[in-house]
């Protein structure tokens, strides 16, 4: 079941667009923020609300790499390997990440903490190599900085668990 808060959000977002189907991507993002991924139920609901066939919503999810049909880890590491980042060592960052976490592209660590993805340009070429963790950007990443970041994230997770 989708929460009432999400449904209310859907209503208000759809109202903002002159063409209903223009709201598909924002709706998908809101749904993913709440559920963690885009569930079948969310696909059906969005398709119904904007009046398209569910397959068209699934097409959009496939097109945008930031949308997921399966749950991803708590921290979703997205490493850019597009041209600017590549020239500044983005691929090395990605490989380092993979080695440290023991996972590959589009995989999640067994504890469900980290997911890794090689992504296209994040629009942060000025700070290449760049990466994104959930919605936060990290620029001029080096392997050392990355290690520190991973440790930091692990600590953050521990902290949140103690609080829970």
């Amino acid at each position, binding site marked *: 079941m989708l929460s009432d808060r999400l449904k209310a959000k859907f209503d208000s977002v759809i109202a903002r667009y002159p063409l209903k189907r223009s709201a598909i991507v924002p709706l998908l993002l809101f749904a993913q923020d709440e559920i963690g991924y885009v569930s079948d139920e969310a696909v059906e609901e969005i398709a119904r609300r904007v009046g398209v066939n569910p397959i068209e919503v699934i*097409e959009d999810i496939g097109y945008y790499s930031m949308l997921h049909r399966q749950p991803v880890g708590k921290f979703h590491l997205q490493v850019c390997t597009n041209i600017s980042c590549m020239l500044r060592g983005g691929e090395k960052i990605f490989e380092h990440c993979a080695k440290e976490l023991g996972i590959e592209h589009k995989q999640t660590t067994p504890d469900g903490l980290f997911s890794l993805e090689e992504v296209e340009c994040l629009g942060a070429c000025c700070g290449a190599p760049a990466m994104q963790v959930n919605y936060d950007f990290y620029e001029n990443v080096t392997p050392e900085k990355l290690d520190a970041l991973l440790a930091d994230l692990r600590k953050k997770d521990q902290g949140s668990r103690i609080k829970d």
Partner: protein
Amino acid sequence: MAEPIKLSIDGKPVTVPPGTLLIEAAKQVGIEVPSFCYYPGLSLQGACRMCLVAIEKMPKLQTACTTVVTNGMVVHTDTPEVANTRKSMLEFLLTNHPLDCPVCDKGGECELQDAVFRYGAAETRFLEGKLHEEEKKFSNLVYYDRPRCILCFRCIRVCDEGMDVNAYGIGFRAAHSEIIPNRGEQLECEECGMCIDICPVGALTSGTYRYKTRPWEVTYTGTICNHCGDGCRTTLSVRNNVVIRANNRDHSGLNGEFLCVKGRFGWDFVNSERRLKSPLLRKNGKQEEASWEEALTFTVERLKTILAEHGPGAVAVIGSNRTTNEEDYLLQRFARTVLGTNDIDHHRTADFSSLVRALTEAGATDRYATIEDISAAKSLLLIGNDPTHQHPLIAYQIRQAVRQHGARLYIVNSREIKLRRQSSQYLQVKPQGEAEAVRALAGQAPAAQDLCAGGTGALTALADALKKESDTVILFGDEIQGQTVNDLVTCGLTLPGKTRFVALGDYANSRGAADMGLLPDTLPGYQPLSNEKARERMESAWAAKIPAAPGRNIRSIFEGIRAGEIKALLVFGANPVKTFGLDNAALTGLQLLFVAELFRTETAELANVVVPAASFAEKSGTVTNTCGEVQALKRTMRQAGTRSDLEILLALARLFGQRWTYQSPEDVLREIIALVPGYDIPLPSLLVGRAVPTHPEGRPPALERPDLVFSSRDSLFTSGTLSRYSWALNSVDEAKKPYGHAF
């Protein structure tokens, strides 16, 4: 009419109507512009870029498939630039293509293969390895091979626009784009296989044909599909006496490229292991294999005894909805003249008799609609029936009419049929309320307040809308029968323009069975038995007496058997036990039950004599579709041990001492053409594969009782008894969905 457009292509002057696409204009003067994504009748895509041509005064090459011609346009398709572009586009398309032509099912009839042969690009300049992905099984009937796919999106468009199913989408992007099915890894759709047929490469392959043979290794025979009453032309591919696939290869006939799941995959009952191959004779309560001679002699001897003891009233005949016109004609001749009984009937699935009578009485026998009339109609009124399930071709043609010519579709139905998505007005009436709605529309009886959800206002709105239309095609199912057909025709003829009518009957030759007089009170061509002139005409042609009194209809035949009045029943290609839900005791009073069938059906199990009949692929003849168009069946193969119903009837007649002179189905057809009113069809048109419309004229007696005409409500995946013996039709999960399910 707007002024035609004049342009020049490769120096050749072309004149075409405005709005023509450049690619079509080029085709008209015999200049081929290669393309993959362009398909006549589908929306424009411009995805493959193969059709780029040079147009003077345009800075870059233009796609011929999306460019509309204008006056004075000067087009070149033979410049080095265009040739180079074609080569480069092919190189791009082959970037990830595996070039596994020797293995691929499409090899030999592949558009990509042809294009590469013609335009080059056999060598690639890419150094990177090709992306590979494993083949995916979308369903038991549809497989998808991503590497072969060139992303022309024809499958997506035909599924969406042609079939209104929308089962395909595009997943992911760029080099990783692929065709995705609607249910995760699986398809849930009508399984029509249009996507397989339309695929220009071997990306989508058929579950029943894949890796079996190669296209040049089989023989192709154009014949008519044996399932529903639409009469689609289909090409059977046969190798070693086994049907391997069916598709309308040359896109000829009234269905063009269309075939539904039954037409494309439902032919495999022909090859079924369970086909009867030898006659069965009941000895000591058990059916045992017997020779043809033994079985037929036994039947005739038993018949002669019964006729001698009880008279012709003790023998009844049930005909088929699938056998050819020739066989039906001979069957009723056999019953009326050899057995001397008019107790002959078949499972009537639409009230054709009433339609013929109504149109004859109104003097409007030119108002039978053809399939082409449906697709070209500006306005359509559909009453009852669910064409999506029962008449896939007619449903397709209705969708074509709506989508391509902006036709208005009006629907009166008690169920939420899928075609309502295309309708301008959809009048949902209460269950079994269709006839009442028609009577109300015709002004015969006022409608009850609860007839439709929106009150009687909706009905008035429908009537008003219809009055503004012209040349409406009215289609009706078994819900409308007897007097109501008369009301509908009278009312329809008052509408503006040339209103036309179609009665929707279930099976391949339902219409032909009625036309050929498999009815207790009607001679061939809807001539009533009571009409002395008509009777005498047949009597003199057949040199035999026809009993004048009408016989028993099919319900009375069953009652007669129960009452012990009927001692012998001959059944040709029908399964009345199942169709009419007869109980086990219903036929026990018979001294002879003779069944000619393909399979050991419920009726055949009870029979004294069962003879193996030939299927539609194994015989020639003609069938008449539900619109009254006659088409020719062509024999494509032989099945050892079987005989066609025609051969069986001739053998029976011979054993009865008759001297019938027919040598072939054609001889019978010639007699039909000469004798049956409305069937004076030109033989040559028939033989070249055309659908020839008929215009029967006659005043058959009124429908005796309402439970004589009823549809089997076959879904997309069922077809009476035959579908039970088809692996393909039962292999898909969708077959478990009930009749009326909208995919």
